[in-house]
């Protein structure tokens, strides 16, 4: 250990730019309220550019050339503090513990409320918060939600491994059941509930914190918080003046560079932040190319003491290669490319072509108004607009892309010979419809919203919050022909208004419709906080309306072409109590019931304008108990939860001979319960150990009998079927996870990190509606696995600039593990279709602050 420490010290001494120092000032910055160390705090010698940040333990050490002066200590959400120092006659001065007080300026508190952030030892929910510093130092080339992997109840997968294709699952619930909010604005897709992380690629650069609230969460508005809620808060006027340039490089050509510039709050009460970045290269999986930009702009203005306006716009235009087809374990074993194997790409004219890709740009703009009405009341309002353009590429026509098809690949799993497909299209003649071509499933949408929250103190101890939440969403869906592969056209017969339509590149074909979603929500919350007790109760009601217009399946005079609005009214209520036993111990409990409108696809089944009259709200009941301990060296959080999903509805759809068969499966119940533990231990100042354990028991709770299948004319087909689910494990998320981490400050300027994440009791995903025979085995249980990561952060002064190097190696041991599986015949390993998680990857990056 000592030897390693010495050699590391030597290495970093060599790396460190040597400065003529007068002396050294040390100190530890903590949260004045609870003594928690604050990492990432800016410490600057006033009147100079000489500055450092505190490490994970709140410790800083700064070399100064002046004998006397003052240090300015500042941190997001806290009041800055200025401390004088006098070095005369000393080489080292220890300022001891510096307490930063929460910023009493109302702004941050307003944000905390408006953004539905949970407050430690007050909000009665299970929560883990990731600070900006952690994101900056440890994320590397990982997907943004992967920073949450060391928190309990969370399972993050990269899916096929393409850039931004990650999925975040909490407590066994898929992404459509995990609410994501950015600055208090919901971003789950209005039609299918999903979150596409590639849309938010730049946020990791400007996030000031990321909070994951498990279970009901602290949000007041109607959200799909069945598994939990993720709150991402970006930096705003609270940011310090300055900026940085950063550059990161990694495995497989991964390169990211960018810069960030903030004016800080100017004399004229304006503040602006701009951030830009560019990412190129590839991910670990073959041909998962990245071509992405990200931008972020925030302009804020204080209008007197009581008003602040803030405009934020951000987005991440990108195109990335995907892996969309899972393979058998045996395929990976046989393939030359091993776990990197991707069968969804090929060559055309010597150029790599991603047969499956994704391209999207979804700028999100919001104008926020914070109004401190008086000492006891405030109103925050956000109006926002977001529009998305893009889609996902894939194949069409005769399938020549089979993974074993050596007619079109040099070898099984090898790249597809697109030139041969082009030649075959050409050989058919230029007066023949394309045989095989490429298309994109387009999804362009517009989303307008307004969210207004009024907060007032009813009495010294009771706060009342109420608000309104309006959303309107219009989504255009169509197939676009993107590459004819040598043919001159394609003849499509799916548009009843244009039989034998000649389709060329860029034209719409196959389907074209618009879905409209209208949402009106009201919410109110009362909060009591006195002495040791805080309690909260909230209610919300919302109305979701869907309408669908179809331009291809119906003629203009067909009354079915545009449906009426279909309404679903849903209520929710939740409440909780937190009791602070003493300075160190607290306990909390919460209870909630909420309803959720069915998704668009369950209302308009088979993408037709026949309204599914049986579509029902889904109902969720959740209860939770928790305990927290905050000691000097030790922190712990323990909680148990029970989430009961009642009347979960499914729509079974099957297609054959262009006839679609459907069935409504109502009344499916699921029960997710478990225990979560999070620990932090700091035996010495320089070392922090963290631990997490999450034990889940997630099962389906009943069988459903007499499900009738219908054809597209609503005629019953065959005898009713039964679905056998009682006691079947929920798949798609590891039910047991634990993590261990260590963070060790080798030197004041240098921190090394190690973390280990373990996943077990992980069942393959499966089609719930397919279990129509009694006595089937559990779905395939994937092998347990553990992944080990290492990281290093080193700060030094580089020509007067506060510079930081971050190096991370993910999956150091190159463990080959299955991260996702689709259950196969007989529920065994041999038939499961799987994705492997990434092998060993690394990033090394530098951030130069100014």
């Amino acid at each position: 250990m000592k030897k390693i420490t010495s050699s590391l010290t030597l290495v970093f001494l060599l790396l460190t730019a040597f400065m003529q120092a007068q002396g050294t000032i040390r100190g530890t910055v903590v949260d004045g309220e609870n003594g928690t160390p604050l990492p990432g705090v800016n410490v600057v010698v006033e009147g100079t550019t000489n500055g450092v940040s505190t490490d994970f333990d709140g410790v800083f050490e700064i070399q100064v050339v002046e004998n006397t002066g003052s240090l300015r200590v500042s941190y997001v959400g806290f009041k800055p503090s200025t401390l004088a120092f006098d070095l005369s006659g000393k080489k080292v001065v220890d300022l001891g513990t510096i307490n930063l007080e929460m910023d009493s300026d109302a702004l941050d508190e307003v944000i905390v409320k408006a953004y539905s952030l949970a407050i430690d030892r007050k909000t009665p929910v299970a929560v883990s918060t990731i600070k900006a510093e952690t994101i900056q130092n440890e994320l590397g080339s990982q997907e943004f939600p992967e920073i949450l992997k060391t928190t309990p109840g969370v399972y993050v997968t990269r899916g096929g491994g393409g850039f931004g294709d990650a999925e975040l699952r909490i407590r066994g619930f898929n992404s459509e059941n995990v609410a994501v909010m950015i600055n208090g604005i919901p971003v789950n897709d209005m039609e299918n509930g999903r979150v596409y992380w590639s849309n938010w690629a730049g946020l990791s650069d400007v996030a000031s914190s990321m909070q994951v609230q498990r279970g009901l969460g602290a949000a007041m508005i109607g959200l799909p918080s069945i598994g939990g809620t993720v709150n991402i808060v970006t930096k705003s006027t609270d940011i310090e003046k300055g900026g940085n340039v950063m550059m990161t490089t990694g495995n497989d050509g991964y390169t990211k560079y960018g810069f960030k510039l903030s004016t800080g709050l100017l004399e004229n009460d304006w503040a602006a932040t701009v951030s830009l970045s560019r990412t190129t290269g590839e991910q670990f999986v073959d041909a998962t190319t990245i071509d992405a930009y990200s931008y972020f702009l925030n302009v804020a203005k204080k209008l007197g003491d009581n008003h602040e306006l803030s405009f934020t716009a951000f987005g991440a235009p990108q195109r990335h290669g995907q892996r969309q087809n899972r393979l058998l374990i045996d395929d990976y074993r046989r393939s030359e490319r091993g776990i990197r194997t991707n069968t969804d790409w090929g060559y055309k004219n010597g150029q790599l072509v991603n047969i499956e890709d994704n391209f999207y740009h979804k700028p999100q703009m919001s104008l926020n108004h914070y109004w401190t009405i008086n000492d006891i009341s405030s109103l925050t309002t956000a109006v926002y607009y977001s529009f998305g353009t893009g889609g996902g590429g894939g194949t069409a026509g005769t399938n020549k892309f089979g993974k074993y098809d050596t007619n079109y690949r040099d070898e099984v799993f090898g790249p597809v010979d697109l030139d041969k497909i082009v030649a075959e299209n050409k050989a058919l003649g230029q007066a023949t419809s394309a045989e095989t071509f490429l298309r994109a499933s387009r999804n362009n949408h517009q989303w307008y919203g307004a969210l207004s929250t009024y907060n007032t103190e009813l009495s010294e101890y009771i706060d009342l919050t109420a608000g309104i939440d309006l959303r309107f969403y219009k989504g255009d869906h169509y197939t676009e022909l993107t590459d004819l592969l040598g043919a001159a056209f394609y003849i499509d017969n799916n548009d009843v208004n244009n039989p034998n339509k000649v389709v060329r590149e860029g034209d719409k074909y196959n389907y074209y419709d618009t879905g409209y979603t209208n949402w009106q929500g009201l919410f109110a919350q009362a909060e009591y906080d006195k002495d040791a007790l805080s309690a909260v109760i909230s209610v919300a009601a919302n109305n979701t309306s869907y309408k669908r217009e179809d331009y291809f399946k119906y003629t203009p005079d067909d009354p079915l072409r545009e449906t009426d609005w279909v309404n679903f009214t849903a209520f929710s209520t939740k409440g909780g109590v937190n009791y602070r036993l003493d300075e160190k111990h607290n306990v909390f409990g919460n209870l909630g019931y909420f309803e959720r409108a069915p998704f668009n696809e369950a209302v308009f089944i088979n993408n037709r304008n026949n309204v599914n009259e049986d579509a029902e709200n889904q109902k969720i009941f959740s209860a939770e108990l928790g305990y927290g301990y905050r000691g000097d060296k030790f922190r712990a959080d323990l909680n148990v939860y029970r989430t009961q999903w009642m009347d979960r509805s499914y729509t079974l759809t099957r297609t054959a001979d262009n006839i679609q068969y459907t069935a409504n499966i109502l009344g499916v119940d699921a029960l997710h319960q478990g225990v979560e533990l999070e620990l932090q231990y700091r035996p010495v100042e320089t070392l922090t150990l963290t631990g997490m354990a999450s034990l889940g028991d997630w099962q389906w709770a009943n069988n459903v009998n007499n499900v009738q299948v219908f054809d597209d004319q609503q005629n019953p087909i065959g005898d009713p079927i039964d679905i056998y689910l009682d006691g079947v494990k929920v798949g798609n998320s590891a039910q047991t996870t634990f993590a261990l981490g260590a963070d060790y400050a080798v030197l004041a300027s240098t921190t090394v990190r190690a973390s280990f994440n373990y996943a077990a009791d992980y069942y393959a995903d499966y089609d719930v509606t397919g279990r129509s025979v009694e006595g089937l085995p559990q779905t395939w249980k994937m092998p347990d696995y553990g992944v080990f990561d290492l990281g290093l952060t080193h700060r030094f002064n580089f020509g007067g600039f506060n510079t930081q190097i971050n190096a991370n190696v993910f999956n150091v041991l190159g463990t080959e593990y299955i991260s996702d599986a689709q259950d196969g015949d007989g529920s065994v390993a041999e038939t499961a279709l799987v994705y492997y998680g990434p092998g060993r990857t690394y990033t090394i990056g530098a951030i130069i602050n100014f």
Partner: protein
Amino acid sequence: MKKLNYLFTTIIMAVLALGCDPVEDINDSLAENEAGIVDEFSYTLTEDDYKETLGLDYANFNTIDDARDLIPQVLEENFPFLGANSLSTVTYDLYQPVQTERSLIVYTVTTEDYDSYPDTEEFDNFDDEDQIYTFLDDKYGDVDNRTLISLTYKFYDGSAQTLNNGFLRVNGSWQFALGLTNAEYNEVGQGFANFNTEDEALRKLPIFLKDKFKYDDVAEGTIKSVMYKLYTTDEDDIDNDGSVEDRATYSYIANFILIGSEWEVYNNVVSQTLQFGNDGSTWIPDNTISYSLVAADYAFIASELGDTYPAQTSSMTQYGNMDRRSGNAAFWSDDMILEAFNLLLNDLDPSAEEGQKYAVTFDIYNGSNTTETFFLIKTDGVWVMQ
């Protein structure tokens, strides 16, 4: 610090123990039970296969039995990675020598000859091939084996023609060798009724044969013997006159084989094919027929088994495939499919011999649309899994 070291050591050991290779056991078991790669392909033996792999002197086999015995070695050497149920159609060369002879006896049938037979007495020509052979038997029945008779005779086939053809005495019977008429020599560009060199003959005769049989349905691989004449120096004293310097016209036989649409000089090997199947350890001559189900077959199965398996057959009729998700009500088990294929194969190939093998490929749905193949063999009159 010491306690911390213990803690670290424990953590690192736990990491190494837990983080190793989670999928190792599955991969090992897959490797153990590896079915091998299955392929169905055609292969033509190369010179290296005969000479290097098999150590033969010539790039052909002497007998078909040799081919059956030796080709598996070639397949094993060239395709060691292919496993059970692979099929290979192998093309190889078989040595089948056909002798080329030189003329020994030149004879023109005389009026007296015709007159000595009642059938030919009246018109002084032959009008039936049997008459020629009767004449040859009588006149040359006692010649040495492999003696060639260059016979000029009149033949009536609608009109009377003068023909010159060769008849080779082989083990007591006559082998016919097509000769060229004078007119035909003229047609192939010869001023006299002969060729000047062997090369010229071998170059022109294929063209001649192609033209002569252009309206006939000649099977590929047919070998024709042609008797041609050369005006040459009798270096070998073919005519037994004691002189090797005399120049005269001699007759020779050359053999030609039809390959594709061309006649080629037959070099005493014929191309043959044999199918071999891999049984998991070695290649054996195989009779497997590969068959993919067509729409009519699904309809046949549905009509035969509709009452027995209503859910399975109605799903199959709707989707045009067999549901292979074991969780589903319409699931086709292996036994059900075997039952269906027994009915189907007995209908398609009722006279299949005992031991006949089939590789039956059919469409399935297992979450995605794909295919599956069953390997069946007729045993005791029933189709069973191989």
